[in-house]
């Protein structure tokens, strides 16, 4: 049994800045913006953490985007990412400095190592959070969808610290840059050594896969496409949109899992979301309901997606998509004519 702690010994809001080979995951800047809202209420400092090799630029950018202080752990052992060195380093920083709140992006990396910090420190860890707030006593209100997305549960951690949460990418607006902002960069002791590592990255292949969470326009396909992407691709081309998919289309192997929208995929917030042959299961809707305008194309008049659409057409997507693409291309051609 872990001894009771005095929660008053813990202060500050920490945000983990996730980077791989110098490339920062956008969710990190989303978390800095949300972290700043929390510190405005609590009066705490907003502290960014960078763990990697040669992360000076990343640390400097974290200051520009709102951090009061950056804790930088800089060592080759952290590149590429592995759960054991990251977890051990992060844990050591938490145990030495007692943060009250720790926010980590709900990426595969964040969800991989968060437990290696929360378990040994007996911290409360809430997964895949979509809304956060803090009350006057500094208790984090971490809200996450429950039971397939119909309910929003507020998870609390009253007697343990830190209060940790992994936060779903794409849900919040990113913090902007202010080159005039000033802050402190603190180099922390690196406590892990390559000889202690229990895992080894043999190969890492990261391509230029489109990040659908950043897209302004999305054409998403579902089971209704029956394995034929052509009509959706044509429409995406006409709209200059990114292609995305529901779980059903990913499970069928028609489209890559990195483009999946929904509870087990990504949250997107484009200006325009066109749902093609998607029935509209609640798990999918949860990932796209922050879209500005939703258009649904489906031949089933009873498809639930219609309840979540601004404009809907009941029709055969194999006819509607190419016709709509042609119509939009014609309109654009007319616009550019003198």
């Amino acid at each position: 049994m872990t001894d009771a702690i005095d929660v008053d010994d813990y202060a500050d809001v920490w945000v983990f800045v996730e980077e791989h080979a110098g490339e920062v995951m956008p969710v990190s800047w989303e978390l800095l913006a949300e972290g700043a809202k929390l510190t405005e209420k609590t009066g705490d400092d907003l502290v960014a953490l960078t763990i990697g090799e040669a992360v000076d630029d990343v640390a400097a950018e974290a200051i520009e985007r709102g951090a009061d202080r950056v804790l930088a752990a800089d060592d080759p052992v952290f590149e590429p990412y592995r759960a054991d060195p990251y977890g051990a380093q992060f844990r050591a920083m938490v145990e030495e400095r007692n943060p009250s709140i720790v926010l980590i992006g709900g990426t595969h990396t964040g969800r991989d190592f968060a437990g290696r910090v929360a378990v040994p420190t007996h911290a409360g860890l809430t997964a895949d959070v979509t809304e956060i707030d803090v009350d006057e006593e500094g208790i984090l209100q971490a809200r996450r969808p429950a039971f397939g997305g119909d309910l929003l549960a507020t998870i609390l951690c009253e007697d343990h610290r830190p209060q940790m949460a992994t936060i779903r990418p794409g849900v919040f607006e990113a913090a902007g840059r202010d080159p005039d902002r000033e802050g402190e960069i603190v180099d922390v002791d690196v406590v892990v050594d390559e000889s202690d590592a229990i895992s080894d990255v043999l190969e890492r292949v990261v391509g230029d896969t489109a990040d659908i969470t950043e897209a302004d326009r999305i054409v998403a396909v579902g089971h209704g496409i029956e394995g034929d992407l052509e009509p959706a691709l044509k429409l995406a081309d006409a709209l200059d949109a990114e292609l995305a998919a529901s779980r059903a289309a990913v499970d069928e192997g028609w489209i890559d899992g990195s483009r999946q929208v929904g509870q087990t995929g990504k949250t997107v917030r484009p200006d325009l979301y066109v749902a093609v042959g998607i029935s509209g299961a609640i798990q999918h809707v949860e990932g796209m309901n922050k879209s500005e305008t939703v258009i649904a194309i489906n031949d089933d008049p009873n498809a639930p997606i219609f309840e979540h659409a601004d404009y809907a057409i009941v029709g055969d997507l194999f006819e509607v998509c190419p016709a709509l693409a042609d119509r939009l291309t014609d309109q654009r051609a007319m616009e550019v004519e003198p």
Partner: protein
Amino acid sequence: MTWTIVVGVKQVPDADEVGIDPDTGRLDRASAPAVMNGPDQHALEAALTIRDQVGGELYAMSMGPPNATSILEEAVAMGCDDAVLISDRAFAGSDTWPTSLTLARAAEALEADVVLCGEETTDSSTGQVPPGIAAHNGWAQLTYAEAVDARPDEDRLVARRDVEGGHELVAADLPVVVAAAFGEFPPRPAPLHRKIYGENDFEPTVWDAEDLEIEDEVGLAVSPTSVGSMETVQPVERKSEVVDDVDDLAAAVEEVFA
């Protein structure tokens, strides 16, 4: 050398059968039949793949009520050699911290070289338990594993992990906890004779909190997190305008970009 492989399976309400209570508008989970968590079926297939490669014993373990025996019977039918039910009222109210502790202690007791789990459960979707098991035991972990390759000569397991925008190959020292990516290991059908054995003759070993010497470390009291409140998600207001032809749809699109 052969390996001892343990797969964690959880009983969950069948997500496809969960209805909505017309009076409260809330999900009615009680009416849904209890089934094996879908991602765990894929973890079980990954476990069978590893056993096919290196040989050894494959155990299923489940933390749950006595009637979770049915999913252990299913696991045995699919090919597990034996199974353990970890059941005790003391576990009630456990969040992911004590849950992963319990499974970590059970994996130790079974002398696991490899523990497999689904990447998350369909009822709570935290994905925190597999890394939690690894963290409690100080073991290596391989999450979001899309493919597994046992290397018994090196005492290591290699997995291809899905990462944002690509993948990586990671080798982990044993013992290791693997969270299998859902959809990547479609489960093989159980042969009829195993089904008959599982349903009629098989009984799991049952362990309680005392057996695992964790009576004071489980349940609500040691869980760092608690559920404060539950709200029904309000649907986003939409125009819900049904259009009849493509021209109207094109006009709607143009309106978005106007």
